């Protein structure tokens, strides 16, 4: 097989391509010698082709997929519900989806799967959906990968959406990964920015990679639908407008598509009251500085007063002071709350990877050189065992609790 990218004789060894390559895949042994492309590092992004003023880089054109892109219409949002309650991420998707639909001149549609959820369709319309595709079946009462994916695949093939958004939640990521493959769609994970290219009308999907150290913008120019999962708490929720009108389409689905090989035997809810930290607007997180499991009680007290979820560093989780589902960071969860209060957490890179996009970061640490202060909006240098109780008391007073 011939190389998909080559530097041709037109090259004048100027080295512009070396500078342009975002992946460091092009090197020049010395100035004024021929640059070499390392195909193991090259992602064929085309930055060098654009940068070359001499038209000297040849890249294989991707053959067109042969599909009629124009036949794909509308922006879809997967409506995630747990026990019939629409999750807030859905409202965030509707808020963002509305903007995308308007700039494409298309409809915004929600897809709702569940059992006895018909009444919820109005909620989606009030939040901006022009149309709701509803599949209401006992088999869909709770999320199961295979049946949910089968239904979505069926609906996508039938109605051909242009854009398909889903929350980057546990369910969302498991689900749409199974949908994108059979419909031959591009799928971009955990997006934090979405926009429509004014010229090509392609969806520009921006997302963090390498734990948030870099950002990448991704397109799927030749395939439809353009699918993305979207990070919690980044997009603004759509406002409720009960006067809005919309259409509900009841979809019928063949029974065989609702069969699952992997079956849920039971579900055990977690005891902690405010568990889903990915959805929390405020998080109070504790680290090794908390010293014991009992001391996490102090964090929970503060969390109750200010309406926060409780997070933790890996050190705290590994010491069994709190369950793994609360761990924030590279090997835990990525969160993006309005306020993140880090107590007794040093702020190692793996922890920052999970929380550095929070709007406001507050750090409480006795070590003035702790790296967490480099990202903190407000930092207090001091002993958490003195500061935490004061903080809780002061908030109680100020918030009138």
């Amino acid at each position: 097989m011939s190389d998909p990218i080559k530097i041709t004789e037109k090259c004048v060894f100027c080295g512009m391509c070396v500078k342009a390559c975002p992946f460091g895949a092009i090197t020049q042994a010395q100035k004024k010698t021929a640059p070499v492309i390392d195909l193991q590092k090259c992602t064929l992004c085309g930055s060098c082709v654009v940068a070359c003023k001499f038209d000297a880089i040849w890249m294989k054109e991707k053959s067109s997929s042969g599909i009629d892109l124009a036949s794909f219409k509308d922006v879809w949002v997967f409506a995630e519900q747990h026990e019939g309650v629409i999750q807030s991420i859905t409202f965030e998707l509707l808020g963002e989806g509305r903007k995308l639909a308007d700039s494409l001149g298309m409809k915004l549609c929600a897809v709702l799967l569940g059992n006895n959820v018909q009444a919820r369709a109005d909620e989606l319309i009030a939040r901006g959906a022009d149309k709701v595709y509803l599949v209401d079946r006992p088999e869909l009462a709770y999320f199961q990968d295979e049946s949910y994916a089968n239904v979505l695949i069926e609906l996508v093939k039938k109605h051909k959406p242009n854009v398909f958004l889903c929350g980057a939640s546990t369910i969302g990521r498991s689900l749409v990964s199974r949908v994108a493959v059979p419909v031959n769609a591009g799928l971009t994970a955990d997006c934090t920015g979405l926009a429509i290219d004014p010229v090509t009308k392609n969806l520009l999907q921006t997302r963090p990679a390498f734990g948030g150290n870099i950002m990448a913008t991704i397109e799927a120019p030749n395939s439809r639908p353009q699918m993305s999962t979207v990070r919690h708490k980044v997009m603004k929720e759509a406002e409720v407008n009960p006067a809005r009108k919309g259409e509900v389409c009841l979809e019928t689905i063949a029974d065989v598509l609702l069969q699952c090989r992997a079956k849920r035997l039971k579900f055990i809810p977690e005891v902690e009251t405010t568990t889903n930290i990915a959805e929390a607007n405020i998080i109070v997180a504790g680290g090794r500085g908390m010293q014991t499991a009992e001391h996490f009680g102090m964090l929970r007290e503060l969390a109750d007063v200010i309406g926060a979820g409780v997070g933790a560093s890996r050190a705290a989780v590994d010491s069994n002071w709190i369950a793994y589902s609360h761990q924030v960071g590279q090997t835990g969860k990525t969160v993006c709350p309005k306020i993140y209060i880090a107590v007794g957490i040093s702020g190692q890179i793996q922890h920052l990877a999970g929380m550095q996009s929070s709007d406001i970061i507050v750090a409480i640490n006795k070590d003035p050189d702790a790296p967490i202060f480099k990202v903190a909006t407000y930092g207090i240098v001091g002993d958490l065992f003195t500061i935490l109780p004061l903080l809780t008391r002061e908030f109680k007073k100020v918030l009138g609790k």
Partner: protein
Amino acid sequence: MRYVVCIKQVPETTDVKINPETNTLMRDGVVSIINPFDMYAIEEGLRLKAKTGGTVTVLSMGPPQADAALREAIAMGADDGILLSDRAFAGSDTWATSYTIAMAIRKIGNFDLILCGKQASDGDTAQVGPGIAVHLDLPQITYVRKIESIDDKTIVAERLMENGYEVIQSPLPCVLTVVKEINEPRLPSLKGKMAAKKAVIPCWKAVDLQCDPKCIGMEGSPTKVVKIFTPPARQGGEVMKGEPSEIVPQLVAKLKDAILGASH
């Protein structure tokens, strides 16, 4: 029982930086490691093997250097490793990656369980595991935090959800993606290290897998990275020092509005 563990070689996050002058990724001298979540997948494969007998095969798609990751897994106790490496795979996104890995697993043949990490630390997509499952038309259990039981036909596992956990039963073969809670990965043993040194690791190319050229590399990847950039650096803000009884009320005053705004 035959266990197949999919592992990816990734740069240690801490080392990934962008050259401020050229705005490009600096990967020179970057230490490569096995994706942290995949360490748990390897460990679980080894534990299952100890329970049921059988073999653990590790599989990695990547540049020739990914050989080192496979050897590290063998040093931990895996029986053999297979490298998928071919220039034709360059430019693969998660669609093409999961296709290629699925084709390799087909070639391996009589497998019972495929283990993946929850996600890779470079791309953080969590898409490849389920992608492999659909390409092979297999059921999946994602975010597994515990395997309750396994026999030659069935597996029962706990899946971590955002608001609790589920117990799921699936027929084998099946694809699992695992989270950190599942176990504590072991260190390589001396015997393992010897085995790793001696191991012969085959390198499979697109032709060996009978891949459809339209489904691999750039051709098989619907998505395309069009730009990378450094996020605006987060500035350290105000550090408050002094008597706690004085600074705490100051902090609360600064946060009050944001807290009231956020609790709606």
